[in-house]
């Protein structure tokens, strides 16, 4: 009915649809970036995405004004210092979507993402301009908000290459990385329908939840008709640090999480453990990574009834400082052999820190980038809370190896259950003028 009302009175809007008369530069209706970069902008606002001068100036002004370039050798949102908020979304391609539709979608998403990452609005006229007889191009809820460090990271599910039934919808089966197969069933997995799979994923991270949600909302809208949302997840608090400049945050068990995470300041480790080198193949994935997402529900009500001694024993760290129980401070290497009374190790055999440690897993590490979530409550009055685990690694085997060890023995399993699971191949970053995943279709 609203549409009918608007359609009934078109006349007074004509002059307002003229972009020239608008006070804001085109495509930059959203924020103060215009003062820094607006003068040189022409066209759809995409040109501002990589303006590093503007970014540096804006980033220096306030942390939430951080701007990360969308284009680059690697996708942003991996070694980028973990932002505070997440909106993660997985999409199914339409049943009638063609290979051309898929490429066009990636092209459109790339252009829109570059705009969004720069803190600009979607489209030529943005959120509050353009034809008065058309809905605005941008949904508008991010007007006035800075870029907030938004990154958008894209991934491809195994099903994109070949459906479980063996259908090669887009002529990609031959290009599927041999390692890109659905994760195995791990002991204790209680996966729920609708919390895994999909053809494509987008990880949107930002320091402002409204900015992250705005990005997924607008990218979903762009996809309508070609792809639709299959599942999505909001995360409100980061549980990992990916930079030594960040303090270690806490998970909903109240413990520090990600102390031993891979940090951007360790480029050699990142190269060794996170990026797929050309030698690993396939060529189109070089400089990319593999993304594992797991929705881990925590039974926090039971946890909160657990005595402190056991809580610390389960993690193998102190609850306050986060130091390993073998001594020292947070970043002291755990000493798994140090024994206490009765020759029992101070860090229990089933402690989380022991089982997850690279020394117990053939040196396997992951770059973790998870988020706390609370999605209301369940029918039993318990918070539907937990950790939306995200990790990036050079091979899914790194995750599987650690997860198998954890699933078998981790004392924490008593308080967690894995209800969602997904694996995506993350292509390398896009060059300006190209699009995400371009090499896959070359």
């Amino acid at each position: 009915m609203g549409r009918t009302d608007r359609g009934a009175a078109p006349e007074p809007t004509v002059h307002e649809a003229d972009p020239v008369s608008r006070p804001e530069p085109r495509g930059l209706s959203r924020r103060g970036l215009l003062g820094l970069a607006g003068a040189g902008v022409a066209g759809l606002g995409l040109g501002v995405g990589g303006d590093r001068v503007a970014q540096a100036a804006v980033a220096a002004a306030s942390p939430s004004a951080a701007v990360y370039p969308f284009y680059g050798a690697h996708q942003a949102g991996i070694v980028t210092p973990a932002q505070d908020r997440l909106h993660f979304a997985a999409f199914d391609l339409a049943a009638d979507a063609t290979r051309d539709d898929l490429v066009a979608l990636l092209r459109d998403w790339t252009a829109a993402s570059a705009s969004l990452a720069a803190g600009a609005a979607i489209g030529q006229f943005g959120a509050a301009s353009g034809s008065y007889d058309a809905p605005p191009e941008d949904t508008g809820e991010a007007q006035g908000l800075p870029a907030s460090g938004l990154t958008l990271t894209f991934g491809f599910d195994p099903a994109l290459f070949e459906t479980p039934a063996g259908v090669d919808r887009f002529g990609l089966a031959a290009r599927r990385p041999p390692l890109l197969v659905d994760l195995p069933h791990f002991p204790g997995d209680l996966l729920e329908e609708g919390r895994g799979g999909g053809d494509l994923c987008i990880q949107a991270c930002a320091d402002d939840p409204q900015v992250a949600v705005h990005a997924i909302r607008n990218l979903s809208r762009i996809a309508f008709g070609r792809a639709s949302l299959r599942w999505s997840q909001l995360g409100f608090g980061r549980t990992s640090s990916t930079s030594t400049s960040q303090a270690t945050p806490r998970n909903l068990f109240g413990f520090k999480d990600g102390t031993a995470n891979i940090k951007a300041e360790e480029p050699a480790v990142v190269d060794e453990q996170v990026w797929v080198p050309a030698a690993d193949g396939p060529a189109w994935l070089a400089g990319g990574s593999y993304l594992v997402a797991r929705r881990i529900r925590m039974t926090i009500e039971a946890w909160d009834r657990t005595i402190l001694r056991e809580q610390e024993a389960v993690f193998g760290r102190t609850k306050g400082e986060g130091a390993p129980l073998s001594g020292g401070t947070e970043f002291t290497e755990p000493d798994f052999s140090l024994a206490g009374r009765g020759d029992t190790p101070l860090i229990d055999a089933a402690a989380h820190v022991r089982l997850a440690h690279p020394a117990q897993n053939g040196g396997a590490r992951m770059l973790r980038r998870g988020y706390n979530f609370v999605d209301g409550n369940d029918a039993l009055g318990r918070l539907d809370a937990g950790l939306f685990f995200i990790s990036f690694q050079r091979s899914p085997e790194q995750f599987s190896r650690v997860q198998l060890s954890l699933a078998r023995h981790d004392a924490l399993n008593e308080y967690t259950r894995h209800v969602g699971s997904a694996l995506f191949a993350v292509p390398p970053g896009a060059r300006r003028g190209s699009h995400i995943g371009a090499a896959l279709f070359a």
Partner: protein
Amino acid sequence: MRARFPLLGFASAAGLLALTGCVPNAGAPGSSHAALTVDSSAAACTVSAAEAPAGNVRFRVANSGDQVTEFYLLADDGLRIVGEAENIGPGLSRDLVVQLPAGSYFTACKPGMAGDGIGKAEFTVTESAGAAPVSVDLAARIETANTNYASYVRDQVAQLVTGTAAFAAAYTTGDLDAARALYAPTRAHWERVETIAESFGDLDPKLDLREADLEEGQDWTGWHAIEKDLWPADAEAGFIAYGSEERGRLAGLLIADTATLNDKVQDLRFTLAQQTNGAIGLLDEVSTGKVTGEEEFWSHTDLSDFQANVDGASVLYAGVRDILVEKDAELAARLDREFAALQELLDAQRAGDGFRLYTELSPAEIRALADQVNALGEPLNQLTATLVL
């Protein structure tokens, strides 16, 4: 049940929490306590003060040495341990909270956890008007409670052995109706002492693993593997009933593993804290597995397990209730009330000799049970700190 790996193993933790022992960070909200620091170095054991008023006293023990250390508070004979903080790694701090009557004590540290310890010093607790009345020596009654609980565990496992034999016989001879009838009542003996049974990390997965807990290629044995064969209605398409050889194998393993469990519980000893925490553990079993209908995925006899877990928790509570009444009558009254309310809800679901199936419960009925488990859980949380402090 989902495999549990209790890190405070019952068998190995003797003396973990002494009768007059310690509760880390118990910190009795609202009430004041004397706060002292202890520096345990390689050569010294320095307590920030040599005296404190009677009542709750917190020692924050910092290990500044390079070995694992322990801190002891000893009675006036210099031998009997009143409280201890053990396994403090280098650089770490740990709290020891104790409720102390006026009198003479000693403090000492034991870096390296060997020898006689160092820095043994006199420590005086002075009379204090604000101090809670110090309870009489309850050691004998606590010892009785501990012994009684060990007997209860042995008795339940003995009944489990007998019941399992009857169940296995019905199952292997093809009297599946009889096996189905025996399934829930026999498992009740397991569920009553579930946290004890699960403390044997190798036995629990053999006996009580659910299908979702399997890893690829793992052999599935125990109660739930048989459960699926007995109640295949919800099984995946193409599920085929086990052959007689497989049934014989599963039944044989069930009997053998239960016999091993029976051997292992013969020498168990419990501390008071293990009993009270065991009650909480049983309630957590209810809230994570039974009230959600996940435990008995094929038979839907979850409420029978629910009742058995609550039985086990009630027994644990009843064993220490007399002591609690003296220490905190209000908490005892609240626990009495919440246990009764939970039992009332369960009784309303009785059908025949057992209970209605989980799948027959309405969402509102399930919700009421879940809420009451939480209502009982909160006061139960306070039990350990109240009793052992």
